[in-house]
């Protein structure tokens, strides 16, 4: 589904990605982890075509993504910071994105799930951060695309919404979707992901299940296992 070969990205003089090779062929939940500045967001944005790679190729569902925008109908993206035109209402935003991507009925269900009905006629500029994030989540999940990319999906959510989000992600997994997640909340990652991809200094340092990571680093606890990778790399 996703094939990345020898991906390099340099911003001016700063090399962020230095040779990523990653193939994801099956459905499941993949967590992309790494310290700050390791290139997680750059990797995700390269997949989305928002960042133009310096070198290397990316194929999504068999299509080369270079100078191509049609493949994006197979990808749903939840950006890290949600900011929408302030003068539109929530309802109008949903209508607009549906207008751009094609119609769907799934939004009604999601609006109910996240209790957004009272906000539908409010302007986006007047919403709180958490509510904006919920709007963002609805926008992402309302299209039934085979690939989902979530960048820090838990930001600003209250506990109930967090539980609902986890349920939603699991449900999408049973629908045979490929889900990429980045997060700094290790308990969330541990609970939800099938496999982790650990980036360090622009390369893939580790790829495998959490159990494998624990045995490799000889740490009983996931959070400590991650920390031990970082310690050895910083040392």
């Amino acid at each position: 589904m996703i094939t990345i070969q020898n991906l390099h990205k340099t911003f001016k003089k700063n090399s962020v990605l230095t040779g990523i090779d990653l193939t994801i062929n099956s459905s499941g939940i993949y967590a992309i982890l790494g310290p700050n500045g390791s290139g997680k967001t750059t990797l995700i944005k390269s997949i989305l075509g928002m960042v133009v790679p310096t070198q290397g190729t990316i194929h999504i569902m068999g299509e080369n993504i270079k100078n191509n925008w049609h493949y994006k109908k197979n990808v749903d993206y939840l950006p890290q910071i949600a900011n929408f035109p302030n003068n539109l209402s929530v309802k109008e935003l949903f209508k607009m994105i549906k207008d751009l991507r094609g119609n769907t009925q799934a939004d009604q269900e999601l609006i109910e799930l996240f209790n957004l009905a009272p906000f539908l006629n409010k302007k986006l500029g007047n919403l709180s951060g958490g509510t904006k994030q919920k709007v963002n989540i609805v926008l992402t999940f309302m299209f039934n695309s085979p690939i989902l990319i979530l960048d820090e999906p838990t930001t600003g959510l209250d506990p109930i919404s967090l539980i609902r989000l986890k349920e939603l992600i699991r449900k999408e997994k049973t629908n045979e979707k490929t889900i990429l997640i980045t997060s700094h909340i290790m308990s969330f990652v541990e609970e939800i992901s099938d496999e982790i991809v650990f980036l360090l200094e622009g390369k893939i340092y580790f790829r495998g299940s959490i159990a494998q990571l624990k045995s490799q680093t000889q740490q009983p606890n996931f959070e400590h296992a991650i920390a031990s990778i970082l310690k050895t790399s910083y040392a």
Partner: protein
Amino acid sequence: MLKILKYSFYDLMRSRWSYVYFLFYLLLGTVLLFLNNDLSKAIITLMNVIIVLVPLIGTIFGVMYYYNSKEFTELLLAQPLKRNAIFLGQYLGVSLSLTMSLVLGIGIPFILYGIFRSDSIWNFSLLLVTGTFLTFIFTALAFNISLSNENKIKGFGYAVLLWLFLAIIYDGIFLMSLLLFEDYPLDKLSLIGTMLNPIDLSRTLILLKLDISALLGYTGAVFKKFFGTNFGLIISILMLSLWVFIPMLRIIFKSKKKDF
């Protein structure tokens, strides 16, 4: 592209600033017309305001809109849309909404005054046409500046500098060079100099249409000979179109290669 244009336009049409801008022109037009009672003078005063203000507002609005909608642009970039479509759509949305504020704001008082029954209708239309051109030109320049500068403050700074240069400094340099080389024949040079700056070009175009070129002395006569003809008018409109077209091409080119 049309969809993006539509939504940018709707978004801006509901923004407070569009109304402020509209009301400002409405007030200005009304006051000038009904307290002054001289159509030609009102048009000249309006021209002086439009020639300076329209570029300023176009630049500031363009830069502000681009930076404010940055995250939303990122959301759009993740949708199955062409990059060109997103940026051109936004650009046209901003320009059209500004143009609408201008045309309605000035148009309403003039219609109430009875412009259709007077022979100044052509001068008035030329005023609106140049105002529209200036809006499109300076919004496009603002988009160019913001696409090239990640830093908001820098972008704003360059945009204001650009406006300052074309609205004021250019004229200064132009005049100085005319004084400096006054021993040489300057008709061609001054003509070209005027053509290269959209603000000067618009000003000259309107002044000459208003038939007050006598104020401009000998140069005025040369200008009149050039701009007064249909050929001059067509060349001027062509020049203004180029000023819209070239920055637009750069928006397309730049947005294709940019990382978000």
